[in-house]
């Protein structure tokens, strides 16, 4: 029932008077209005902007925050108003919803901010009125696509230590940047596709004459060489296809996919040619089969994103293309008929039948004008000119639609790539801020030690030591300190930890990947699996030893600056650092191979070295939360 109509409920109840005299049974009792208060004005103070409305207006929707008793939590006794520390702009829309029953979505508002506000006030976004619903849904979809994009790219970058061989292979095929081997494979297949296509082309070029016979194409002159080349290419393609088939997570779906069909079509002619002998009857068909070899060029679409986008565009514009085709066909038939009958009279006319006129119509409508068929009568010429004019129009209409579709999809892709590149820089900056906060703790700990030392010595200089931190900071540090005391481990920074890891691993344990290191779903990399990942990164990238998990070739961000805090702690037991000690289910590592070593100056972790992870008895390790997807900038 719409809210505005709730005000008409008394009328509806009064209208029931028409039923009373005809009713045979007694009526039920009416509900008593327990607290029949007069309607009163409520003041809602949203971040300083005061809104006022009747209480009954808000009570129209009792399952929202403002309509239920939940708003009592926000009642300010001193000022006798309800105070909400939220955005007043969006609140305007929310309040209008109560008043008019329609929820509008203002276009200038960010979609996630708006969603957050709606969730706070307990309003379902589905109620948005028709006027604004489409806009809202569009924006929401774009946002969701962006999130999915980000998630995908992140998922690609995380290493899941428990991938089977088959899954690694599939990932290597789908995403060549994940490993060197995959990249090599990618380039090799690309090279062979090119070689194969070029061979096909060169085969037909006339190659110079053998004395005593006519000019031969190269394919027949050097047939053995070409045959060998062809064989080699087909071998490579077959091996690639079989490998992909083996690695595919769902073989049935893989077989049905477009790319695999192209693969099959590309290599089939060769095998069929092997099987068939030089039988005269079938050699005609055999020649036709060789045409299919040119489909190998479509295999390039795995290598080129632009080609894939083009294919996707054509697929998505199928209706426009269909319309284009249909209207062209209509026009062709009409004009061909007209031309045929117009030219019927003229002698030696080339327009022998209507299908023969189709060719003329097509050539004219696409403004090609070969000139092999030309109208000779006056009527024919008139209709011919109308035909060419209309051809221009009919073709020019659907083409911009297809072009704009292609442009939109292409730019979307560009934006996705740009976002990924920007994201690294953003994350890096955020990380700097975060390490700033954790460094602050370590810094203050040092100062705290000094404080204690000074207190023991009883000097008054302790005054100007630790007072620079705010109350919140000091409480936070106290909290972290309590955690340290509870677990008997201490926080250190990453530099120290890496060195310690390195030193401990020198001593022991064959290199096995222990997938049990991280059981925490949100933190998916251990320091050590990170090491393993580092072994497979690209030789030509200049990734410093960072927590950056991306293995993209294109990364040029040096995060190195953030990883060199100027402080060194005097303690160097094997500890993991936790950036926020507020996670209740994190425990510090239980790595027991504690090595006490003198801290060396922070150095970049050498790349490419395979370090085995130290075995950890406990499954719950607290991973440096820098690896997590949760980016916290505040100190708390």
């Amino acid at each position, binding site marked *: 029932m*719409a809210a*505005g109509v709730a*005000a008409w409920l008394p009328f*509806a109840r*009064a209208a029931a008077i028409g039923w*009373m005299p005809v009713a045979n049974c007694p009526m039920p009792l009416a509900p008593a209005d327990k607290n029949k208060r007069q309607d009163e004005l409520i003041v809602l103070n949203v971040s300083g902007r005061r809104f006022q409305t009747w209480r009954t207006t808000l009570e129209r929707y009792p399952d929202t925050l403002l309509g239920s008793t939940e708003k009592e939590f926000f009642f300010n006794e001193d000022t006798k108003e309800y105070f909400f520390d939220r955005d007043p702009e969006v609140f305007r829309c929310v309040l209008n919803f109560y008043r008019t029953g329609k929820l509008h979505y203002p276009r200038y508002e960010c979609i996630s901010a708006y969603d957050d506000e709606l969730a706070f006030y307990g309003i379902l976004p589905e109620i948005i009125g028709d006027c604004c619903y489409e806009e809202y849904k569009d924006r929401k979809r774009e946002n969701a696509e962006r999130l999915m994009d980000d998630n995908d790219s992140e998922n690609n970058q995380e290493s899941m230590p428990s991938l089977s061989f088959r899954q690694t292979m599939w990932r290597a095929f789908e995403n060549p940047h994940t490993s060197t081997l995959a990249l090599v494979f990618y380039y090799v297949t690309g090279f062979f596709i090119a070689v194969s296509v070029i061979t096909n082309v060169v085969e037909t070029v006339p190659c110079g004459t053998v004395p005593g016979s006519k000019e031969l194409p190269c394919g027949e002159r050097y047939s053995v060489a070409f045959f060998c080349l062809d064989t080699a290419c087909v071998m490579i393609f077959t091996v690639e296809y079989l490998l992909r088939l083996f690695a595919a997570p769902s073989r049935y779906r893989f077989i049905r996919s477009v790319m695999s069909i192209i693969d099959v079509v590309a290599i089939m002619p060769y095998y069929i040619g092997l099987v068939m002998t030089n039988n005269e009857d079938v050699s005609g068909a055999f020649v036709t089969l060789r045409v299919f070899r040119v489909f190998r060029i479509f295999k390039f679409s795995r290598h080129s994103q632009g080609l894939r986008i083009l294919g996707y565009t054509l697929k998505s514009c199928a209706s426009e293309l269909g319309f284009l085709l249909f209207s062209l066909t209509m026009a062709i038939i009409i004009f061909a008929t007209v031309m045929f009958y117009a030219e019927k009279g003229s002698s030696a006319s080339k327009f022998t039948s209507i299908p023969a006129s189709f060719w003329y119509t097509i050539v004219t409508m696409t403004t090609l004008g070969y000139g092999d068929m030309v109208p000779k009568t006056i009527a024919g010429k008139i209709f011919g000119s109308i035909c060419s004019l209309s051809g221009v129009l009919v073709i020019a209409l659907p083409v911009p639609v297809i072009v704009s579709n292609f442009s939109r999809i292409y730019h979307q892709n560009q934006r996705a790539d740009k976002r990924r590149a920007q994201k690294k820089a953003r994350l890096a900056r955020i990380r700097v801020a975060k390490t700033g906060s954790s460094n602050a703790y370590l810094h203050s700990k040092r100062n705290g030690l000094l404080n204690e030392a000074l207190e023991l010595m009883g000097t008054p200089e302790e005054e100007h030591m630790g007072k620079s931190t705010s109350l919140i900071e000091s409480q936070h540090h106290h909290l972290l300190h309590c955690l340290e005391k509870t677990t008997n481990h201490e926080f250190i920074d990453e530099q120290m930890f890496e060195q310690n890891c390195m030193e401990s691993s020198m001593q022991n344990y064959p290199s096995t990947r222990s997938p049990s290191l991280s059981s925490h779903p949100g933190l998916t990399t251990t320091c050590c699996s990170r090491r393993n990942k580092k072994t497979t990164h690209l030789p030509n990238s200049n990734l410093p030893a960072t927590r950056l998990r991306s293995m993209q070739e294109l990364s040029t961000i040096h995060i190195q600056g953030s990883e060199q805090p100027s402080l060194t702690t005097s303690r160097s037991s094997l500890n993991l650092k936790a950036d926020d000690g507020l996670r209740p289910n994190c425990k510090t590592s239980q790595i027991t191979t504690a090595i006490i070593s003198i801290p060396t100056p922070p150095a970049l972790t050498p790349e490419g070295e395979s370090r085995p992870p130290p075995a950890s008895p406990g499954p719950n390790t607290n991973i440096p939360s820098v690896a997590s997807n949760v980016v916290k900038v505040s100190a708390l």
Partner: protein
Amino acid sequence: MRGQGRKESLSDSRDLDGSYDQLTGHPPGPTKKALKQRFLKLLPCCGPQALPSVSENSVEDEFELSTVCHRPEGLEQLQEQTKFTRKELQVLYRGFKNECPSGIVNEENFKQIYSQFFPQGDSSTYATFLFNAFDTNHDGSVSFEDFVAGLSVILRGTIDDRLNWAFNLYDLNKDGCITKEEMLDIMKSIYDMMGKYTYPALREEAPREHVESFFQKMDRNKDGVVTIEEFIESCQKDENIMRSMKLFDNVI
């Protein structure tokens, strides 16, 4: 895919048979009708009776006298005419104005508002009868005064007033007596509001049977019609009806 939204436009053949305007998507009727009527108005033969139909297309005919905005009489007058207090009138008016910003309700609007209270069934016929009962001057629209006058009788009037009002509702042609056909119409409209899904399932003869029992109770002299006196007398003798009439005391 945004392309899919365009599929409809390609499959519509409405633009070919002239039943809608390609540019605005509206039926081409009103603009043509407005022009035609304006032309007709110029002719001396067409008198003012052509005008009421014009005002019904009030949405399109912006250049006509359409935006009727009716303001009710002052609060004091309404307080005198009805038995509502000032505050009650204020609340009633706010609700009324919210739903009908122009100040009057026409039949369509009325039916639409009433149907929101009965989502399962079809309340349009009963709403029409109600509309005719509220529209005391029969001008096709219910203003706030009419509305509040009707409500005042039902909610604040004496039992006899209420019974009178109910009789007025039943008497469709306002001739002072209720025939069986009128009662049957009313009964059918009430049963329509129940909708399809009832327990026990509605039978075709249920309204007719109900009418028969009503007439048996009300029609004293068995002449096939119920007059106002018979009606009031029979109702006053029926305890259930008397008790149910008291329900309206606490609606507002």
